[in-house]
């Protein structure tokens, strides 16, 4: 089956007086593994349920494979959804659970049996058909839920926080299996998560959502390297973020902020017009004897250090603000003692200016 795309065009949805989705437009390419990433209450699950047909949008249109599905009930959409709690029916065996969608499609018995076996085989649960969901582990239950959805060969696969009910170790393994499965089947997949690591590691592209609005759509690296606003910068990865304004004095450019005070920006940095925050990642900070002109130079005192194995995370008091610096650890090297005055350098290429 050829994969299909999903087009969301100017969709708006309110529950009573609460606007949950505000003019959402996004295109998911055929065969793409696409993530909706955002904190709880951002509208990401609402958007997913809207694609499945469980929510009705009040404005705009939703196209699946070029066909407008607005008004099509969930049971006629051919969009497979894996629920956060798996939603396996306890009164049916694993086999009966997986066969359900096929039976609803009135497939001949022999074909149902064949497809159930194939689906269970696909998720590595061949031979578990006679068990009841309650007799399976959490990870196995999730795989049954995936098999049940894939058995109907849906046009689009929707995953609602599929990893959140698994323990940490299993989560990484399942994540990798999901990616392999998606690549193998080539099915258009939309994945809802609040965990940036999950989104960054699995998906081709990610839409970051907040307060019912898509903040930015891009590949994981685009989001990390070029966040368009403060929310995306903070939500994807960790970041040092300072509000302030630019001042030009002669040829020199300065950034004046309440927290850092007035600091000179390195030559060649061109800030965009208007109010922006200065942003840089903790791993871009290095401790130096004296910073060169090609880097932003800050001076401060170590306030706290956390040892995280591969690196040390320092909190450094700079003016009235705190700068986070992740400094790689080398064997045997002692941490810098709290109170020590140090110089920091951030290369010009690592400085970002993001909209507030």
């Amino acid at each position, binding site marked *: 089956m050829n994969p299909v795309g999903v087009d969301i065009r100017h969709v708006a949805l309110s529950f009573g007086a609460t606007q949950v989705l505000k003019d959402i437009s996004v295109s998911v390419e055929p065969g793409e593994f696409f993530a909706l990433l955002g904190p709880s209450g951002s509208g990401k699950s609402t958007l997913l349920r809207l694609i499945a047909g469980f929510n009705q949008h009040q404005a705009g249109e939703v196209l699946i494979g070029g066909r407008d599905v607005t008004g099509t009930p969930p049971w006629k959409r051919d969009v497979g959804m894996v629920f956060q709690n798996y*939603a396996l029916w306890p009164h049916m065996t694993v086999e009966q659970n997986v066969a359900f969608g096929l039976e609803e*499609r009135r497939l001949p018995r022999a074909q149902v049996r064949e497809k159930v076996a194939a689906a269970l085989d696909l998720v590595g649960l061949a031979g578990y058909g006679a068990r009841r969901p309650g007799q399976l582990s959490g990870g196995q239950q999730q795989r049954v839920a995936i098999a049940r959805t894939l058995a109907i060969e849906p046009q689009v696969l929707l995953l609602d926080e599929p990893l959140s009910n698994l323990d940490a170790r299993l989560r990484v393994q399942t994540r990798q299996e999901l990616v392999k499965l998606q690549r193998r089947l080539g099915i258009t997949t939309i994945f809802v998560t609040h965990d940036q690591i999950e989104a960054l590691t699995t998906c081709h592209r990610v839409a970051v959502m907040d307060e019912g609005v898509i903040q930015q759509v891009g590949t994981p690296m685009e989001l990390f390297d070029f966040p368009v606003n403060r929310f995306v910068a903070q939500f994807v990865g960790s970041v040092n973020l300072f509000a302030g304004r630019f001042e030009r004095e002669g040829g020199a450019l300065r950034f004046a902020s309440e927290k850092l005070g007035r600091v000179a920006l390195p030559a060649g940095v061109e800030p965009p017009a208007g109010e922006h925050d200065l942003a840089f990642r903790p791993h871009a900070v290095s401790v130096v004897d004296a910073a060169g002109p090609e880097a932003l130079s800050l001076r401060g005192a170590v306030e706290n250090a956390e040892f995280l194995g591969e690196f040390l995370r320092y909190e450094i008091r700079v003016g009235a603000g705190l700068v986070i610096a992740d400094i790689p650890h080398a064997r045997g090297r002692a941490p810098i003692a709290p109170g020590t005055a140090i110089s920091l350098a951030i290369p010009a290429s690592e400085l970002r200016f993001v909209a507030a």
Partner: protein
Amino acid sequence: MRTHPGIVAIALAIAAFLVAFLVIPVVAVVYTAFSDGHGGFTLAHFAAFHEISLMRESFANSLYVAGMTVGLGTLIAVPLAYLTVRFQFRGAILVQTLGVLPLVMPAFVGAAAMQLLFGRSGSVNLILKDAFGVTLPLMEGLNGVIFVETLHYFPFILLNLSAALANIDSSMEEAAQNLGASGWRLFRKVVFPLAMPGYVAGASLVFIKVFDDLGTPLVLNVTNMLAPQAYLRVTSIGLEDPIGYVICVILVAFSIGAMGGSWWFVKRRDYALVSRGGVQAPRRRLTPWQALLAYGWIAGMLLLVLSPHLGILLLSISKVWSFTVLPEQLTLAHYATVFTESKQMIWNTFLYCGLAALLDVALGTAIAYIVLRTKLPGRQLLDHLVTIALAMPGLVLGIGYLRTFKGVELPFGGGALTASWVIFVLAYAVRRLPYALRSCMAALTQVHPALEEAAENLGAGRWNTIRRVVIPLMMGGILAGFVTSFITAAAEISETILLTSRESMAPMSYGIYLYFQSVLGRGPGAALGVIAVALVAFGTYVSHRLVAARSPHQSGGGQ
């Protein structure tokens, strides 16, 4: 920590009480059914039972009536439950009312009113005959029993099923919709099976209640059923007639079978998965046609359910009411009659039920404490013993009492136990104990042990902790248990009919039954019925308020 000797003594005393007034009477009944009279085992009495065609007929009739009641009750309850839980509509309060109304009136009280409304020459048939020249045999023979019992007991299915439906996580249904199921198939393949535990619990309860009921068939003059036959054998042939005991064993076996069956059914499947996210399905909107159908159905049911209440009220204030659609002359004379003739009975009800309920909450509190808060070996046994009472038909316990305590004299010259009012208190208390115990257990579970540890830490001994901390915190549950015991005892009829040996010691429920035996007594009987219903309704209201007031702010600490 060693268990306090005082607690051991109390536990033993409770165990002795339960053995004397629950276990021994039941064992005596079962023993008599299987005994050849010389200490040997025999199945001859069962064979004799099988030889009598009336008995075979009664057995079949009882099964038929109980089965039909469950079936019809299901037909009424399932749409109502589904409607309230899954759709947006304003009738929810009406359906809740529907769920409580029948329970406040004992089925046998309603039966007399139903006769006048739906009987051969009742209001409905008079109208039908006038308009279409036909009559419906709604109250003829077994039909009448089924009709009355269905209207009385369908709330058990409604309440249990509604609770089960409300507990289903919305994703369970959405997953089915996502895979292509909708409408009736969605209900049949996913929704109803998931609510099955609630349905089975309600349906098995209805089956037992109807199978064991003595009052309704007697008031409707239907004797070819098991419970009335047992009663007639014991009262007319005598306590020595083994057939009555055979019937009792059958009643007990079916009760235990139905309860055990429903327990096994729920246990067998893992339904814990059902409610896990705790998100209730969003309520759907009704289309205008669906709304019309829904409101029509509810209105019709409300009218049916209210009919015995209205009927009994009308009957209590009508001078004569026969062969007319509505009574033609109204009077308050019946109430005057009741208050002069039956003052004693009303007083008796308060005395017996009050003492029984008091005994229940005292035992319930003690057992709850012993089971939940001590390490006394075998403490669960007390809980299990009490649960047996749940499966004991009143008729069986009544017959057991008569047989076991025949000739037992009360101390201090109180006369024979079976001829004394004390026996009512004992019989009522034993059969209501499970309800009171549940209520006390629930209350004590909500009291965090840290609250007791805090008292002990501050120097209070065990008894002072119980008296000053545990019991005050449990008070809401204890009171609710008291009210429940009181009102269910006041509405009881099976034990009452059996144990009443003199009119002067009879409680109200027997008075109503007695009045209904004669045409002239119907008015006063109805008046007494109205008083009983008012009493039960008031008690139900109080108990709901008590349960509502027992909010989490009393619980302290975590759950």
